[in-house]
């Protein structure tokens, strides 16, 4: 009991909430150092938690000491620990980046740090929650924090994007909440551990309907094609550190929840290779093709990166038709989680690099990039390295993820999925090279370049390099994923 005071599980939620509130009290735009120190501590906590899990522990924390089903349980398995670690590891460099990015008295910075703190608290709380209703509360917290970050600044385009995002995210969590209410009606509990033995193939129709509503709601929040309409304006229009946080982490949170429900309490309702699994897989294929197609066509640099996110989310859903035919730790699941990790690093690198390019050239268009190859080589290199991960070239983590997905698809003879996975890599190459080609064009004579803090360039480079080098350390991630009896 004495170790409970330092339980990383509880502190991962309390700490960001505490520094977020404190940053708000400190004043508008204040709290950058508070946030950086807080996130560094959180990274330590996530590492401690992962270590505990790898040592064979099964961290569970009954909040209030009541235990489910009366109280709320927090629990961590390999999947949750991986996501926790990823979130803090990506958030820390982004916080350092944001401190240098927002200069002067910019109105976007006024509430940035409190909003980021609540965003991280919501994600950490979501990853460790073992209670359907509590998960809904974390989804609301996450959605509102994300919308606030998109709206910050109050430009007309931003407000419109934020409102569209708000309405989509509310529809998504509304559908999820309806599902939770129906499950409570059917079983009288919202605790995952209590529900797991109760849900079976003979469940009443209401439970099937609830499962459908919850999955559709979360799919809207994850921006799977054709529900992606809200993502490009929201992610493409926000300031670069916000775009990076949203694209790298926030869409992964609702995807994590889909995965957790799919492999957990909803598993008995879903026969292997069920029609709904194929629906998710085919929409994933549609996302890869449509997102890449739009990314190749858009004239705006940040919109290109945002449409690339739409495409990369597709890979996360290709996994569903491949799941559940073998043991839980199968290659398809490993591939999709590894893809989520690789994409988080690569996409945060790409948005931070794009932020530097936009700041330096003063233009948002890809045509305006001419000449940056000689002026900002480090940033352009970071963009290219992140592109290597998205294309899935060795030795990047993206390569390892695609390799595992391809292996699973070939092993099960799903040639359509194989074709789309390969095509997606080629299409990614097309939009990445489109940026690089313009960057290497000679600069126009009357070009004015603004100086950019070096820190911004180094953060982008560090994130990009880690997304590539992580491929060499992929086995460690897979070991953590399998620890603690992955759902």
């Amino acid at each position, binding site marked *: 009991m004495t170790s*409970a*005071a330092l*339980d990383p599980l*509880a*502190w991962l939620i*309390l700490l960001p*909430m*505490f520094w977020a*509130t404190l940053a*708000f*009290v400190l*004043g508008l735009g204040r709290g950058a150092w508070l946030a950086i120190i807080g996130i560094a501590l959180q990274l330590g906590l996530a590492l401690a938690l992962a270590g505990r899990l790898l040592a064979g522990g099964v961290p569970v*924390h*009954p*909040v*209030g*000491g*009541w235990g489910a*089903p*009366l*109280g*709320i349980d927090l629990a961590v398995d390999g999947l949750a620990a991986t996501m926790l670690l990823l979130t803090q590891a990506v958030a820390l460099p982004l916080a350092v980046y944001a401190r240098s990015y927002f200069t002067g008295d910019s*109105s976007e910075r*006024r*509430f940035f740090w*409190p*909003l980021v703190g*609540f965003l991280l*608290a*919501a994600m950490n709380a979501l990853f460790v929650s073992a209670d359907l*209703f*509590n998960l809904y*509360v*974390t989804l609301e*917290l996450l959605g*509102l*924090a994300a*919308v*606030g*970050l998109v*709206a*910050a*600044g*109050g430009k007309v385009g931003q*407000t419109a994007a*934020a409102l569209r995002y708000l309405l989509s995210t509310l529809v998504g969590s509304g559908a999820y909440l*309806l599902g939770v209410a*129906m499950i*409570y*009606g*059917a*079983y*009288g*509990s919202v605790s995952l551990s*209590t529900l797991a033995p*109760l849900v079976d193939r003979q469940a*009443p*129709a*209401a439970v099937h*309907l609830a499962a459908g509503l919850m999955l559709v709601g979360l799919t809207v929040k994850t921006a799977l094609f054709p529900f992606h309409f809200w993502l490009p304006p929201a992610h493409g229009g926000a300031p670069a550190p916000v775009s990076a946080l949203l694209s790298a982490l926030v869409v992964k949170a609702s995807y994590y929840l889909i995965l957790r429900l799919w492999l957990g309490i909803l598993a008995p309702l879903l026969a292997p290779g069920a029609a709904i699994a194929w629906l998710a897989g085919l929409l994933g294929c549609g996302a890869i093709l449509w997102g890449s197609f739009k990314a190749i066509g858009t004239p705006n640099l940040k919109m290109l990166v945002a449409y690339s996110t739409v495409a990369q989310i597709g890979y996360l859903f290709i996994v569903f038709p491949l799941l559940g035919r073998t043991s839980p730790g199968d290659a398809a699941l490993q591939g999709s989680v590894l893809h989520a990790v690789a994409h988080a690093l690569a996409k945060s690198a790409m948005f931070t690099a794009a932020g530097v390019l936009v700041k330096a050239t003063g233009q948002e268009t890809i045509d305006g990039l001419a000449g940056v190859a000689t002026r900002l080589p480090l940033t352009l290199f970071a963009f290219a390295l992140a592109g290597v991960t998205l294309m899935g070239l060795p030795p990047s983590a993206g390569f390892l993820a695609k390799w595992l997905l391809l292996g699973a698809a070939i092993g099960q003879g799903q040639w359509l999925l194989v074709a789309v996975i390969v095509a997606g890599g080629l299409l990614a190459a097309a939009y990445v090279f489109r940026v690089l080609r313009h960057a290497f064009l000679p600069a126009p004579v009357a070009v004015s370049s603004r100086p950019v803090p070096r820190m911004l360039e180094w953060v982008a480079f560090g994130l990009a390099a880690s997304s590539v080098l992580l491929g060499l350390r992929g086995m460690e991630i897979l070991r953590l994923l399998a620890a603690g009896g992955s759902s």
Partner: protein
Amino acid sequence: MKRIAGAAVMLSAGILAMALVVSMFELPPPAVRLPQMVQEKLPQSGVEHPVTAVLLNFRGYDTLLEVAVLLLALLGMLAGERPRPAAPDRAPTDPVLPGLTRFLVPLMGLTAVYLLWAGAHRPGGAFQAAAVLAAAAVLLHLTDLLPAWTSLRLRLRTGLAGGLLVFITVAAWLLGEGRLLQYPVAHAGSLILFIEVALTISLGLILAGLFLFLPDDDERRR
């Protein structure tokens, strides 16, 4: 095209509503009976009313996050707005309205205190009390007795965030004693009251802020 899409949405919403109604008729009796468990553990919760016990003790963690959601709603609203100049004071025009408000507002304050206190043993509590306080503030503003809020001074920021800070601090302190938000049975009642007082003030300010920070309609029209 738009009409077809609208019809399709209407149709699918109708089908969903039908399916929801039909599925409700064949619900089995729930396997877990939470209300009974709440009744059994009520004596250990520190309060006598089951709703307050669930909100502040059994599922107090949900409430902690919900308070953050409310503060976040205000932050989101403020973040999306441009800073604006202070509104000029307007002279009250109607003598009856301010007079009535001056009479009503102290009563509303009294009602809020009662609701807060009553939460321990009957319907009531911090959220309800805060809603009444916020309503009083809105009434004062509408009768021009209280100007719109234009700046976030330290005192106001502390007031808005204080409830959440108190809640988090208590949660962290209790973590040292056992689990997150695990109240010792002997002190559960007083700790819950302490949190509820802090929450009432902060939530009242947050809810009032959602209205008082809004740009003035009259100014916008000008």
